[in-house]
Each structure stands twice: as C-alpha cells, then as structure tokens.
C-alpha cells in the first residue's frame, strides 16, 4: 500500500495548467461534455484556432459561459444546475434525446473528475459507499462518449494514489477511461499499464511510479 507523507509531495501542475492541456487536445469541431467542477475550467483555455461545442446532459447543446447577473434565467441551467447561456447554433432537447447523444456515441469527448482510475481504465467517481447514493449522468457519459478523459489530482487529499491496480470504490464504468490528466502527468490507458504521454517537468518517472499503484510505462 502506497501512502505518501503529504508534506513531502512535489507540487505538480495547477488546475489551470491541466485544463489548458486538455483544451489543447480537443480537436476543432468536436462535441464535448465537461463534468461539473474542475473540468468546467477547460472551456476557458480553448485556442482561437478551433471551435468546440459543449453539451450539457440536461438538454442543451451549444452551451455558453455563465450569464451576467442581470441575464440569469433559472430555466437555462447546466447539469450542475447553475445558470448558463446558449450560443448561436445551439439547441434544446428533452432528456431522452440528450442521452441519445451520449449513449449513441455522438459526444466526442467527456472530461470527468475521478476518485480512482484503475490500470485497465475502470473509473470510480460517483460514490464513496457512504451517504446518499447519487449517480446522475456519470455512468451514461463514461459508457457512451467516444473518449473519456479524466482530470484529477494524482493523489487524494490524504496522499493516497488515485491511479490504482484495482478500484476499491463502486465503479462508474469498467474499462472506460482513455486518458488521464493529473497534476503530475498525462497518461493513456494501455495494455501495458499507465503510459506516460507527458511528464511534469519537476518529477521523474521513478517518482511518478512511486506515487502510482499500478504499472507506469513509456
């Protein structure tokens, strides 16, 4: 069991840097669903050479940024139930149609947070096993989106690896994650383990392996 003293941890990329890396990897003209919380940052780092269309699972395609205070419409919200806007070329649909977009493989990328990701791409991000169970649309997104990106800290707040040999928490989906963007590295799920695509400039492969409970490969 890996357990790091959190005071010894190397400081990795901040969340804005991670968001900009993800933004860079979303191609022009792609349809993207950004999970509530940290993934929402990604939309702020899209370069001008591309146009991305955001899907919100509550029946909104072409989601825009937060409204000004005086433009808030409580009938126009995102999946996190926060007021948003709609861009020209956007559209509304009902929930079955919205999840047809997801389940039917029409969403090119979804970006989600994680509690644990296994070396085979299993994702746990909906339940700690305690409290009121609440899944929302997470299971549909990971089962349906063409590419499932995870945006996460490499370690939990108490210094435990989130990248693990086998998830201990209830799964959101099995073998669903394509790529992980952590504060330490960008990693793909491969047959040989977590494959490093980009490593944080301040850490070594050996260090990355020491804070990861599962094989790191290059």
């Amino acid at each position, binding site marked *: 069991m890996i357990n790091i003293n959190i005071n010894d941890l190397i400081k990795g990329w901040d969340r804005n840097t991670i968001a900009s890396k993800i933004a860079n990897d979303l191609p022009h003209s792609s349809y993207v669903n950004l999970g509530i919380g940290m993934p929402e940052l990604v939309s702020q780092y899209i370069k001008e050479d591309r146009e991305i269309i955001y899907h919100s699972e*509550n029946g909104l395609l072409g989601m825009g940024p937060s409204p000004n205070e005086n433009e808030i419409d*409580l*009938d126009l919200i995102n999946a996190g*139930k926060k007021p948003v806007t709609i861009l020209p070329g956007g559209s509304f649909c009902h929930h079955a149609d919205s999840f047809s977009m997801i*389940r039917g493989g029409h969403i090119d990328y979804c970006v989600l947070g994680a509690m644990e990701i296994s070396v085979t791409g299993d994702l746990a991000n909906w339940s700690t096993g305690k409290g009121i169970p*609440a*899944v929302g649309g997470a299971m549909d997104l990971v089962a349906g989106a063409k590419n499932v990106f995870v945006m996460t800290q490499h370690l939990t707040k108490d210094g435990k690896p989130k990248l693990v040999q086998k998830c201990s928490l209830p*799964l959101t989906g*099995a073998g669903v994650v394509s790529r992980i963007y952590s504060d330490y590295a960008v990693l793909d799920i491969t047959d040989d383990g977590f494959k490093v695509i980009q490593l944080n400039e301040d850490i070594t492969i050996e260090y990355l392996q020491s804070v990861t409970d599962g094989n790191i490969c290059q």
Partner: protein
Amino acid sequence: MQINKIKKDMTEILSDVFDGATIMVGGFGEAGSPIELLHGLIDKGTKDLTIIANNSGNGRVGLGALIGQRQVKKVICSFARSAKGVTFPELYNKGEIELEVVPQGTLAERIRAAGSGIPGFYTATGVGTPLAEGKEEKIFNGKKYILEEALKADFAFVKAETADRYGNLTYNKTARNFNPIMCMAADTSLVQVKNILEPNEINPEHVITPGIFVQSLINIENPIIETNAIEEGMTYP
C-alpha cells in the same frame, strides 16, 4: 363539441390522483418542476406515493415539501443529493423513505420506452457497476449490455410554457428536460402551464409534446420560482 383539456382549478385537475399512486415529476432541479401541482397534492393529502423524478427536491417547497409531509414512500431518481435538499436526507437517514438510484440516461430511456411500448431494452450504461447487479446481461457484437425495463407511472406532473386546449405543449429552454417523455409514459398527464393559446397560435412544426400525450391542463400564470422561494424562507404548506 370541442376537445378542451383545460381544468378550472387544482381540485378538478387532481381529482383522480389516488393514495399509493406512482407519479412522475418533471424538472431537472427547479427548471421545469411543477411546484403548484405538487402543492395541490399536499393540500389534497394524497399519500404512500412513489415519485419518479431526476432529483429529490430542494428546501421545503414543491417536491421537497411533499416529501417533508411524509406523503412519499419511495423515490426513484438519478441524483438525490442536492445542495439544497433538506427533507429527503432527513427521512432517508432515518430509514423512513426508500430510494432507487437509476443512471440519468437510463432513467430517461426507461421512461421513453414506457411511453413507446418498449417493455425492455439493452444498454451499456452501468455494466460492471453495482447498479447492474441482478440485471440480465446480453452480448451484442462482442460487447456486454444489460437489460433495463420500461418505467411507467399512473400520473405525470409536468410544467410547460405554452399549451392549447388540445394539450399541445412547448417548454422554455432547459425546463424541457424530462417533461415531454414523462407525458408519454404516464397513464394520465397533468400539466401546469404558464400561457394558454388558441390552437392555431402554436405552429405545428414547433409542438414539443403533441396533445395525444396530455390529459389535463391547468393555467398557472406566475409559478413559484424555487430558488427565490427558498431564499425567502418559504415552506409549504
């Protein structure tokens, strides 16, 4: 004689709702939630209800209030852990209300299936997770799927933006959400609507819920806005 589905008051539109009924409640959070119909049900005192909705209510308004009045024995929903949820967590933590968790897209599709005469369908959503336990599996093209069954209801409580006397409906922005498919899946759909128009005033290309899926309408011109009501400390009754 002309078809006219518009009822004169809350007593009339709720007259057939019975104890033990299964009721779908439209809305995603507060957007599209039929608060006045739910308050009508509190006034009526209908009990032992099973509620199918995406969420489990906020504050002590609308669905939150109905649950707080202990009129609900079970909630079937995707996300019962709202920031402003009060009454559901209270009862749930005491073991006094049942919860069935359904992934949001599976919930939507099960509802749409019921309205479309599809008793069951296969989906990859949930495969390999605790929510797949006890469900039939089947392989299509080498990939594993689970069988999900249609989810029907006795009534749907729905909020719409405009309607005509035939029950044709349009919605406002993301307040559309579960409302159209719940109209399809319930034996009887009861709709609270802000504006009632003449039949020739709704373009037939723009109808979202055709009147065939709607049984009764009530005009609620200025519905309660949940966020504001909760901020103002409103509780119902």
